[in-house]
């Protein structure tokens, strides 16, 4: 597939694991934003894990994307070069040593940040901290051994060694990308993490402004993966282990992501969250409070408002979960809740509408659960669907996620007059019950339940479906809420200002 290329662009969008390869909240949002500003020329850098983890584009590139490039951080090296024993660069080694000494003082110190900036600058091609030195030099080996002896609480050196290698290797890929990237006037990251690191590096080396819009909180989502992952081993035996501590290697990963998040925060201005709680979380993670603000998502209400007329008079007994079938959406809780719903209302149906190709193991687990609960007749995996087709047929939009930011599906349901039962994550409570007094006065547009509590989720859904008066009241509140607070025009106006400010920023002034 050939991608557009150009010599320069207005705004570089740095995207990690989302648009255009993945469908979902963030990708949809990126698509919305690019389409909303045809006057700006966008360049996209897509960062992924390995090429084979992604299929084809899920979204066609809009016409104003003039440049697209993709990089895979865990791709097998293409070089056939034989590793060569080497001593390593003494200057680079000294820089890294200075960084490690500074980091020993604690994560939130300006000196460590300066040392880190010095190191990452030298990681670019031609610098003194090179990947080959990191992989093959005696100095790097000694540094790793020394750190293992001094800090590592896990007895396995082999695991420590490979964790270090796997963790830092992608940074050199990104350092090269940053150096070779085309000219842009501003950089916009949709997350911290590797994308945020690249954005920070572009801002640091080129002096361009960096805009950061975080949907979820990257570090937090990484933690979810890390808490659940079975591939990170804990090799401590019963005598070595402090039972209250997570495995050291797990902590290494968490600290790594926290640190590169911090690096991005100290370069980014503005730092945009979707809602207040996430903004506070950013500040807690090291973002300077004066640069943070919240811009909620918005949707094009007109796309959904005609659907309200197609709805049947009473609430159809159909619960629909719209989202990718991935662990973070906790589809299993929805399936379990359906067991109770069906016990109480045998005519009820549960639909799961969303792509099933992202995490085949999880999809398999979900299908097994459906079978083990004997719900084959009541639950359908519909795959990717047009939301407009679904809305008139369903009674409730269900969201069982364990982590969310500001889920667009709720807003889309609202626009079509469908109330919701959602878990109490991200901004869901604000979306369902309202934020300020005026918003609350509209009434609840559904029910909020705790995470991973199928029984409560089911009861809330049954209560709404079984009481047409309450359902219609929630539906009216939903429509009023989305029309007043969550339209795309509100969002576009605010981002227009963000872009204008960034693009009028005098380049070169860091």
């Amino acid at each position, binding site marked *: 597939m050939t991608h557009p290329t150009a010599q320069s662009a207005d705004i570089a969008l740095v995207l990690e694991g989302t648009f255009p390869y993945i469908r979902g909240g963030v990708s949809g949002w990126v698509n919305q934003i690019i389409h909303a500003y045809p006057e700006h020329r966008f360049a996209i850098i897509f960062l992924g894990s390995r090429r084979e983890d992604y299929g084809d584009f899920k979204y066609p590139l809009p016409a104003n994307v003039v440049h697209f490039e993709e990089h895979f951080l865990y791709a097998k090296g293409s070089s056939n070069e034989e590793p060569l024993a080497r001593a390593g660069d003494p200057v680079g080694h000294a820089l890294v040593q200075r960084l490690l000494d500074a980091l020993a003082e604690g994560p939130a110190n300006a000196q460590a940040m300066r040392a880190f900036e010095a190191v990452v600058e030298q990681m670019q091609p031609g610098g003194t901290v090179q990947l080959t030195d990191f992989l093959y030099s005696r100095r790097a080996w000694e540094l790793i051994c020394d750190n293992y002896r001094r800090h590592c609480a896990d007895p396995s050196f082999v695991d420590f060694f490979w964790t270090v290698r796997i963790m830092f290797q992608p940074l050199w890929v990104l350092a090269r990308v940053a150096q070779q990237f085309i000219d842009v006037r501003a950089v916009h990251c949709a997350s911290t993490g590797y994308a945020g690191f690249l954005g920070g590096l572009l801002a640091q080396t080129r002096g361009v402004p960096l805009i950061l819009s975080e949907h979820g909180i990257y570090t*937090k989502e990484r*933690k*979810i993966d890390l*808490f*659940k992952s*079975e591939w990170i081993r804990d090799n401590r035996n019963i005598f070595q282990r402090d*039972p*209250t*501590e*997570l495995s050291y290697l797990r902590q290494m990963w968490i600290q790594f992501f926290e640190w590169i998040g911090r690096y991005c925060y100290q370069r980014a201005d503005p730092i945009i969250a979707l809602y207040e709680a996430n903004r506070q*979380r950013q500040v807690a993670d090291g973002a300077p409070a004066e640069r943070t603000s919240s811009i909620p998502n918005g949707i094009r209400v007109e796309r959904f408002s005609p659907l309200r007329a197609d709805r049947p008079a009473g609430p159809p007994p159909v619960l629909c979960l719209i989202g990718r079938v991935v*662990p973070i959406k*906790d589809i299993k809780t929805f399936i*379990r809740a359906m*067991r*109770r719903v069906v*016990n109480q209302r045998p005519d009820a149906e549960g639909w799961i509408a969303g792509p099933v190709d992202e995490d085949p193991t999880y999809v*398999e*687990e979900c299908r*097994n*659960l459906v*079978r*083990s*609960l*004997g719900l084959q007749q009541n639950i359908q995996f519909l795959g990717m669907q047009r939301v407009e087709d679904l809305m008139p047929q369903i009674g409730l939009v269900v969201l069982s996620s*364990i*982590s969310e930011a500001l889920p667009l599906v709720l807003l889309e349901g609202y626009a079509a007059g469908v109330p919701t039962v959602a878990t*109490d*994550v991200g901004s869901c409570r604000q979306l369902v019950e309202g934020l300020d007094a005026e918003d609350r006065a509209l009434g609840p547009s559904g029910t909020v339940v*705790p*995470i*991973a*509590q*199928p*029984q409560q989720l*089911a009861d809330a859904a049954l209560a709404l479906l079984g009481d047409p008066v309450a359902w219609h009241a929630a539906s009216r509140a939903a429509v009023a809420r989305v029309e007043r607070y969550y339209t795309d025009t509100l969002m576009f106006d605010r981002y227009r200002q963000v872009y204008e400010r960034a693009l009028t920023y005098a380049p070169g002034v860091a």
Partner: protein
Amino acid sequence: MLLDLKFGLAALALEVGAWSSASLLAEHSDAALASYLVVHALASVLLSLALLPLIPRRLAQPRLATLALMAGFSYAIPVAGFLGVLAAFPVLARYHGRGQVADFESLQLPEFDQTQRRKSQFRQAGLRSFLGKTEVPVPVRMRAIAALQHVAGRTAAPLLRGVLSDPNDELRLLAYGMLDSLEKRINRAIGVELNALDSAAEGSEQALHSAHHLSDLYWELVYEDLVQGDLRAHAIRESLRYCNLVLQQRSDNAALHLRRGRLLDESGHADEAEQAYVQARALGLPATRVMPYQAQLCFGRRDFAQTRALMQRLDQWSALPRLRPVIDYWNLT
């Protein structure tokens, strides 16, 4: 009070009278002695009557004996006895006031008290309240949750579930991740066995084996407390279904009869459960394995006599150390 005073004055007058008449008469006749003794005795009794109400009620029991003691004392030791009885009152008041006895005597603690078990005070219950306290710093609670990794699922699951509605995201997610991996292990195995059962010929050895394993796995979900409400009912139903399936072919499996009994009891079929227990016993399962459940079933029916009878029989075995306190409780008195 007035009466007491009159008694007192009368006693005093009689005593003085007794002495003075004896000395006034100044004769050493038997009649004088006799009259003295009679009047002295009367005075002693009156004195005792006068003082008796001043003794605290509890000490004045039995009344007649106390009265006799005081009267006897005054009578036997003339003058000194009289004064001694009088003097005894301030002394009594003083000592009695010091060693005030409470209204209640100390109570023995009940023999079987959950909260008084040694060592257990700060185990799950302590951890539960600790995890639930939002004032405790997050990193500390985080470590407490992480420590649950090394605790049996049956103990950890309810604690972790409590954290799921915690306001802190990170704690919630850690607890979720841990619960999820507990449950995933079992559900994955269920998936594998369901596939195996589908592919096996009906009635074959393989099908039987899978059904047995499925019954185990669904029961494990219940036992580890990983399912609640309707899901729990469902797991019990499924476990029972597969259990019955196996028993149709292998009706001599005593352990499965026991499982069947427990499942039936859990789903409210006490009579059938009892049958199953009886069968398990008949097939040779040791009494110590079946009887506790039989006792539980009787207890559930509020048939306490039968419960006690079973518990007494359990007392004859020294097995079941964990059940010991319960057995001891029922065999008390």
